[in-house]
């Protein structure tokens, strides 16, 4: 259905109502309004939908392996709403962002195989990016 189809449903209803309500009492006009002037339903929109939950796109759920790890996390990040209907949430993630930026810049590297973090001494702003260690070998690329 196009835009015009919606418009046509109201054609001349207003004019008809004005003609029929002339000279009638207040109460009769109210009754006539209810009989003649009910609104049409909007036609459906069938094209591409848009994003309706902006914040959800920027959120992520993290499930910890056990309560001990959860409590470790909670000691460093303020977890609010624990156990309440609104759900657990972290509002201040500055520490996390800082850590990720150091990881991204190469100041810290993550040795996934050995489960270690290493400080490389690379200053932030250096042109070299150091990829994470892979099988013990360190790769450099400019």
């Amino acid at each position, binding site marked *: 259905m196009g*835009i015009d189809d*919606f*418009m*046509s449903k*109201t*054609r*001349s*209803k*207003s*004019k008809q*109502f*004005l003609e029929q309500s002339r000279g009638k*009492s*207040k*109460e009769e*006009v*109210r*009754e006539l*309004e*209810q009989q003649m*002037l*009910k*609104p049409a*339903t*909007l036609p459906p*929109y069938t*094209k*591409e*939908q*848009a*994003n*309706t*939950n*902006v*914040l959800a796109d*920027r*959120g992520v759920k993290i499930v910890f392996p056990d309560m001990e790890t959860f409590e470790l996390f909670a000691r460093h990040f303020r977890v*609010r*709403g624990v156990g309440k*209907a*609104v*759900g*657990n*949430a*972290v*509002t*201040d993630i500055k520490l996390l962002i800082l850590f990720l930026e150091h990881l991204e810049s190469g100041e810290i590297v993550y040795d996934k195989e050995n489960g270690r973090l290493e400080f490389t001494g690379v200053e932030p702003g250096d042109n070299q990016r150091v990829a994470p260690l892979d099988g013990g070998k360190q790769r450099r690329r400019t």
Partner: protein
Amino acid sequence: MVENKGAELSSGEYNSPRISSELPDCSMPMTFDHFNYCSLGCLYCFAYFFKSNNPSISKVQLKSIDVKKKLAAMAGKPTNKQDAMFAEHFYARKFLLHWGGLADPFCNFEKKNNVGLRFIEGLGELNYPTLFSFKGDGIFEKDYINVFERYSRQKNFAFQTSIITNSDKLSSIVEIGVPPTSKRLAAISMLSDMGYWTILRLRPFIIGISDEGLDELLERALAAGIRGVSMEFFAMDGRANVGMKDRYAWLSKVMGIKDMHKYFTDLSPKERGGYKRLNRMVKEQYVKKVYQFCAKHGLVCGISDPDFKELNTSGSCCAMPDLYKANPLLQNWTKNQLTYHLKEARKTYHKTGKCVELTFNGVYGEETYLDDPRFANDHVCVINMNYADRANLTQRIILREGWNNLNSPSNPRNYFHGKLMPVRSDENGDLVFKYNPMEYEARWADEGINMTR
């Protein structure tokens, strides 16, 4: 239901202003009251539901703003966080203060305590642009007349006087404890004579009450010196407790309605949700009368109702002027909202035949307060929201989600009931809405009504 008792101030400060929930199409989103309650007893009052009739409020305690702190903030020296955020985003650029959102600036509480008087003096000294929406007769007291006369030369104040019927008798039935229509017209006259911009605020326009004697009321208001008319129809909230139901029952008798709930439910579009505003066919004849009257007399026509919003002749549906040479600060309201853009779309269509498309970024532009999370806490949607979402929520996100959600009553398609229709998505993933010309526009144009003003 707890009634207001007495006019004595309690301890504690009232926090105002706040951001209006009518943000999507409001030119003055900074809404202000200097008391937390109003002493007037208008049966139709929508604020009643949120204030003394609010079931979560167990005791009504009258509080006021701290005048000294508020004026300091407006002068660029805020003393607390709340004032600092308004100072940063609004006071620094002298954004227009709209006074009278949920309470009357000149009601009995003001007559008893004179808090507002001190604040008005301060606003005058600062040449701060302020629009009053009022019907109380405290404005006739000598001190208030003197202060408004004192600042009349700089014209930083403007006034909307609420009048909903031509008849003093009908007014006394519907607006308990409020000065009659004649007295309010006298207030318009007094302020117009001082040289101020005055507006007839036909809000709410109640079918069955406001239509009686409408022609005469418009003429009387014109004779009193109005420069604009602002109109919005009475709506019935679907959430009605005992207090509201009693009021609706009383109103329905005067309106000529047998069953208030059925009348408003039958005649209100479902897409608009539980705040039942009737539909444009029911309203057309009254809007037409006001639009033609304004055109004939060169008045600003302000349609605050979502139906016929496109007929606004300035970008502010409170009938504030686009241009005000006497004091350009009164132009400090925002065009980054749908009233302005819908008005422009209507004018473009009738001048050129082109149906304009509106994008989210095009309508809401760059308003700094929309991106400050601190302001989002004024919105009712934060209730039951988790803290992480709440800490990151902004008014712009709220607007965007309504804009894109075709099930939301605040979506432009639903709110204006078909006046704007979604046609596609833009490069940002937001819906694009197109102006939808309607049957009445062709009919009015054929009758010789100017649709381009």
